[in-house]
């Protein structure tokens, strides 16, 4: 086996271990996102909730694709973009769009 093949094999072993931990924490992330989006829906000016939701979605986007969850990575990227746009003064994305994007992401997380 070549060095590159050995490297990739070892990395994939790590990926498999990390993937399981990602799955294990998915339920908590879904709960956290649901709570945060409830806060944002109730109080649109809750910047702390918006920031926390954006950060949580960002973390999912950062590893999902590497762990083999490409579609989830795309959903997380989209949700993050919506949340960031929602936070801008110009309000390029409505809260409803951001909420919908996050809901789609949590549905995908729930399937894990």
């Amino acid at each position, binding site marked *: 086996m070549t060095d*590159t093949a050995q*490297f*990739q094999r*070892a*990395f994939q072993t*790590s*990926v498999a*271990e*990390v993937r399981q*931990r*990602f799955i294990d924490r998915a339920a908590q992330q879904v709960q956290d996102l649901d709570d945060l989006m409830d806060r944002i829906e109730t109080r649109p000016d809750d910047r702390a909730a918006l920031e926390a939701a954006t*950060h949580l979605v*960002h*973390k999912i*986007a*950062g*590893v999902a*694709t*590497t*762990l083999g969850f490409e579609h989830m*990575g795309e959903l997380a*990227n989209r949700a*993050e973009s919506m949340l960031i746009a929602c936070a801008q003064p110009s309000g390029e994305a409505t809260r409803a769009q951001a909420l919908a994007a996050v809901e789609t992401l949590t549905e995908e997380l729930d399937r894990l």
Partner: protein
Amino acid sequence: MKILAVDDDDLALELLSSALRGAGYSDVTTATSGNEALDIVATTEKPFDAFLLDIRMPGIDGIELCEMLREMPRYASVPIVMITAMQERHFIDRAFAAGAMDYINKPFDPIELGVRIGIAERLSSQAHQVEESATEVALLKSRTGFGAEFKAEEPITIGDVARVISMTAMENYLLRLTYWMAIKSKSVVFSISGFRAIHAQCDPAEMYDILSDAAGAITDGLKYTNHLVTYVGDGQFVAVVNGPGSVLDAEILRSIQYEMDQSQPVLASGKSCPITLEMGEVYSPGLWSAPNRLNLLLCPQLTENRSTANAAGHRAAA
């Protein structure tokens, strides 16, 4: 190579550590926040040789952390690589302006990561040898009046001017731009007239000061634009600008020359050394040339037409 990887996501850190181990980098320390990273840096016995930083972290973000590390003399030129899911242009611009040497998007390819870290390690080692000749000279001169030389054509790093980055960093920055980011960018070269003659009569510390002052004047002239500048050797600086207000015209050159004229150097020999800057033609990538991002660095250097502030003023008045 001793590496510090900083990311607030423990899963991301584990993937990163695994990829680095596979690439042969086993001496990896991790931190989950900017504050923790600073504590580790302050207390480590053996300094770090490279940093991998996520951008989006609570508290001190990766770009702020990069700026703080660059202010530490020990880490002024070690490789700092941002590894992040943030792909928007302003993050890329801010990261390189803060002193990042490279920028890797998540999800990362582990093989590519290993290659890029290896390149950063090698280039940093080479660049450090050239920079040592510039900075050691400054120290030596203050004590003995003597120093080593760096060649006129050598693209040394001007490390003490904001938004002036190494050529390596500029190349990596340009390669990170998307096609549309490249289309919206422009570049131009600023040259020191008669540079070789000036270089021949200066000692290296004086030469470095002149280059640093020129870099400072250029970035001051461009302060209303989103810009990055690099020194490419032979008294030439390439500036890459983008965004609204990124006008590169005779007025900019006059502003830069005015700034230079405020502190024209006097050499140790007592001889004055007035510095005149020339500006080349502005390069804007076309639809077909934009795929080669490095044209933004290379094309302005190839243009023969240069103008000085005086000549540009006469043409504008005519």
